[in-house]
């Protein structure tokens, strides 16, 4: 176990550092540390608007979501490697060539992800808060406890995704039922008792009031989820050759009004047949948004009546823009190099596919507006969500070209992305909170978004496409 674990750790490091450069990637935890350290000095001001407990809860939820997203990303590691480096493989797939069982390798993989991302994300964040404690007056013991409970929250997200993925491989129906039942339970609980259920999140409870019993309970839940993931784990069957009907031609015909319909049709088929479309829609879109809605509503009493749904619409837009990473997941420029296709054409087609997929966030936000009793704000909310998504996709295309999911760890790229999106988020938060109808002005974001797409096409056409 230690040997495989250590090699997987090295492999993960080498994969990231090869992609982003050793120095750039090594700086990433320092950036998280810096953000956390400086953010800690804002806490006294934030406390005037948001109770300490709610802030702590929101931070725990953030790490729960982060764990879930890291888990989802990890499960697609091999696709990522193949996409970036051509024919490549990870140790996680070595059961095919080494005398090691799939379950053993999967257990190592889960532990590796936990430890690796703890050092990459959780520790720098907690360390920043701890380092600021002498200046902000936060008790040192509380800061240490926060680091520990955030790690538990992160692991909870990670284990949830691994458990669901293990169930998904065995039965998509059971996994779907679990997710729908979980979402329904959260919704019913929220509608009947407000955010009470969230307060029962074990890592948060442990932080709010440390007790050995709660510590044991938190660890026991995580251990049970981990064990269940391993027990239920079943590697994909290989050697089966299913026959598929022709989806491509009908799709191209239906999309003839689109400029790049041959490429868009391929993207849609990739998403559908790989299962990544459903997986991403669940793990990278619906689940994080349900959780975010749940916890954002904690701040509801501090916002005007329309504030919650409009803020949520903006967040949904930002998360909706990550669909650009879904459609760039499968192929580098390589497979297109033998065809008369330029990088700019590919970027244009990926943005088009991403725009088509916006029906998902738009529907999601519309349903949320109706269910939460904000039907009157439905149009401004949908406008905000879709405009934000298009704008953020444009920024992402400009900064990352066809490799958004690998360039996210490049400090410079991430920082620039946060500045571009953060500034617009701040402006439209203020505008939307002032009056719900003002939110409709967010459609203006289509213009800079379009300019970013055009700039992306020019910028990435000028780069040698091999290796993109």
């Amino acid at each position: 176990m230690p040997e495989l674990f250590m090699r997987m750790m090295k492999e993960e490091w080498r994969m990231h550092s090869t992609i982003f450069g050793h120095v750039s990637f090594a700086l990433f935890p320092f950036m998280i540390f810096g953000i956390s350290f400086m953010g800690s000095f804002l806490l006294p001001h934030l406390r005037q608007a948001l109770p300490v407990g709610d802030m702590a809860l929101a931070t725990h939820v953030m790490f729960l979501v982060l764990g879930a997203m890291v888990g989802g990303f990890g499960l697609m590691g091999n696709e990522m490697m193949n996409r970036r480096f051509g024919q490549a493989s990870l140790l996680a797939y070595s059961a095919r060539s080494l005398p090691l069982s799939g379950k053993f390798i999967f257990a190592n993989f889960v532990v590796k992800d936990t430890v690796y991302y703890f050092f990459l994300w959780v520790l720098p964040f907690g360390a920043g808060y701890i380092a600021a404690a002498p200046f902000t007056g936060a008790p040192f013991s509380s800061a240490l406890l926060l680091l520990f409970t955030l790690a538990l929250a992160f692991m909870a997200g990670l284990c949830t995704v691994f458990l669901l993925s293990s169930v998904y491989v065995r039965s998509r129906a059971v996994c779907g039922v679990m997710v729908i039942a979980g979402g329904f339970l959260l919704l019913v609980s929220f509608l009947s008792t407000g955010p009470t259920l969230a307060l029962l999140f074990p890592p948060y409870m442990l932080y709010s009031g440390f007790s050995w019993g709660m510590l044991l309970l938190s660890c026991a839940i995580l251990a049970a989820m981990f064990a269940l993931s391993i027990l239920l784990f079943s590697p994909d069957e290989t050697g089966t050759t299913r026959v598929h009907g022709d989806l491509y031609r009908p799709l191209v015909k239906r999309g003839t009004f689109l400029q790049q319909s041959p490429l868009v049709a391929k993207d849609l088929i990739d998403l559908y047949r790989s299962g990544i479309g459903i997986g991403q829609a669940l793990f990278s879109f619906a689940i994080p948004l349900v959780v975010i809605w749940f916890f954002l509503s904690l701040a509801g009493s501090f916002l005007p009546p329309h504030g919650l749904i409009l803020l949520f619409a903006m967040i949904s837009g930002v998360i909706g823009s990550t669909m650009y990473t879904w459609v760039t997941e499968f192929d580098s420029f390589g497979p297109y190099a033998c065809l008369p296709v330029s990088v700019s054409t590919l970027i244009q087609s990926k943005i088009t596919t991403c725009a088509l997929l916006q029906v998902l966030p738009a529907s999601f936000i519309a349903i949320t507006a109706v269910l939460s009793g904000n039907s009157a704000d439905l149009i401004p909310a949908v406008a905000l969500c879709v405009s934000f998504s298009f704008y953020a996709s444009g920024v992402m295309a400009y900064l990352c070209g066809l490799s958004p999911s690998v360039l996210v760890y490049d400090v410079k790229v991430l920082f620039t992305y946060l500045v571009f999106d953060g500034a617009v988020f701040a402006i439209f938060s203020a505008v939307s909170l002032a009056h719900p109808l003002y939110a409709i002005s967010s459609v203006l974001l289509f213009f800079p978004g379009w300019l970013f797409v055009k700039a992306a096409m020019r910028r990435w056409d000028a780069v040698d496409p091999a290796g993109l």
Partner: protein
Amino acid sequence: MSVVLEVSGLSKVYGDVTALDRVSLSVEEGSLFGLLGPNGSGKTTMIKVLTGQIRPTGGSAMVLGLDSEHEGLRIRERVGIIPEQESPPSFLTSMEYLEFVGAVRKIPDIRERADEWFDYLEFGDKKNVLCKDLSRGTRQKLMFAQAFIHEPALALIDEPLINFDPIMQDLVKDYLKDYVKSGKTIFLSTHILEVAEEICSSFAVLHRGRLLHSGPVADLAEKGVHLSGFFLSLVRKGGHA
């Protein structure tokens, strides 16, 4: 015979590595030109530069009268390419992939042409199987079909026989020989010397990015020299240079 491909002083440098070092050569229309060289000699880089996939560091390359540095897209419209390592997209079936190629290349009768290729290369039973589930040999058949399906004036093919069984190799070699007889040109990159000797009309030897030799295969035959012996002595000498 007119020249369809002209390379002058072509160089490509990746960091500290010189993949191509001032290479000059030309290929005549209707010839089956073999670019030979050991692994890592720069053959694949040469095809990438010629088809505008990467830009040269120095020199120039004209392909079908088009400048590869600035008109790569137009070159790729007019030529057929088999890349060395690329596989067809994982989640399209074989038929869907050829339809995709047809849609991108705007080939109107693509299904009919695809069916002809499925029959010719004997993999019609795989037309509805996802590319990720195909064997290496079948993927190679598919890549071969996509390169020739629009009957290009020039095909640049990188190790096209490498995953084929002997029967399929024979079939493909015959196809290539017939293709050039129809006046079209093939630029073949390979390190399988027997194949080059059997089907190429002219060849060039590349080693560590430098061109060691260029000329007709018939010249060797006249001197009673085998291509493999000539190649090995050339590369060994070049290697010590």
